[in-house]
């Protein structure tokens, strides 16, 4: 379980591009191409600044109409999925 204070970093091996608000991420270690929906793409963009989990949650809350609890649960679940797929690490 990741904590809100942890820093999230994109895996430096990934290559990515955001086109018309949608992120496409390449993970060369398994030759996979991942595409995200709007919310996921916004989170991926935020990760460029190596934020803490808490900062990501706060930013998502400020941009989308979503409650604290829901935002936190969704962001953490998404980041854990990214970590499982080798796209991010936690510091």
């Amino acid at each position, binding site marked *: 379980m990741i904590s809100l204070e942890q820093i999230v970093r994109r895996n430096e091996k990934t290559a990515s591009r955001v086109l018309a608000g949608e992120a*496409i991420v*390449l993970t060369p270690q398994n030759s*996979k*191409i991942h595409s995200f929906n709007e919310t996921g793409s916004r989170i991926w963009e935020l990760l460029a600044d190596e934020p803490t989990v808490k900062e990501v949650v706060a930013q998502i809350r400020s941009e989308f109409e979503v409650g604290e609890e829901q935002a936190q649960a969704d962001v953490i679940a998404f980041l854990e999925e990214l970590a499982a*797929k080798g796209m991010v690490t936690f510091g």
Partner: protein
Amino acid sequence: MIGLRPRDWACRHIEDDAKLEKAIKLDIGGLCTQITSSHHEIIAHCVDRYRDFLADKPPDLELVLAFEEGVDLAEFLGAPCETFQEFTQRDLAKKPANDAWARPAPPLPGPPKTSSSTIEERLESRPHISHLGSRTLFQRRDFAGWIDVEARRGRNVLKKNMESFAVESFLRICYSFLAVEHNGLLLHSAGVIRNGNGYIFPGISGTGKSTIASLATEREVVLSDEMVVVRKAGEGHLVYSTPFYGTNESADSNNNAPLNAAFLPVKDDKTYIKETKPSQALSKLLASVLFFGQKPSLNQRLMDISAEIVAQIPFYELHFQRDTSFWECIDERVEDSIT
């Protein structure tokens, strides 16, 4: 040398003393590789297999090929290397890859989600790839070698009796790196020229590349039913034929044309053309690229080249029946996009 056709030039070398090294040059995607070997069979195979792509121009990559027999692998390659037996034993011991990630995620809308697909991998198993300085090292059960696109050199050892697949796979790997180095991509895609316009039909196996190529009429020049090179040229892109064909034997020789549009083929019971979102176009294009790089810089370059193609070239989804009516649909769509 004046007036000497490439084929004559290549054959003349073959007739030389069998002990001498012989060389041929191939021009694929506007990029020239020189293949040198002291093994007659390797050169003869290349001349026969790639005869429409023989060329005589300064090489972008100089490759030396040899058979495993009588060769010290590490010495020939100039790098530590497992023997084929060691590699195969280790490869067999590996567990099969978990492909659970390839399943698409549930659709939008809702919480943040990802969906994943895989870069197309054809022609037997994926080689083991690593990078050492500017060298890219690769090994598979039937060949081992390296290329260095910066130094424009490469070496490869083939397992005897598997040379035909091994040479083709090795060349595909070389061209995948060479294309990226020269602002291009080696793509799993059919390609045609119609009315002077270059069109690509990228897609993974089974999407209809060969079917599209087989439905070409006398009005289309087929660039390939399986693989094309797309490279930046001036303000636009060119699409080139390759000798890396699928089921239709070969392209209508070595051609290229300005790339005007990309159509993602979808087999259907009616014919129509649909717009695609840029992210979908990029995702599908990347899924069709043949590339094995592991370096972050190379992968970002691959991403940037692909994104530029998507930004410049209109991408559509082509739903098509097994007849030639889709060609007119393509004409109409291209005319609409111009006006």
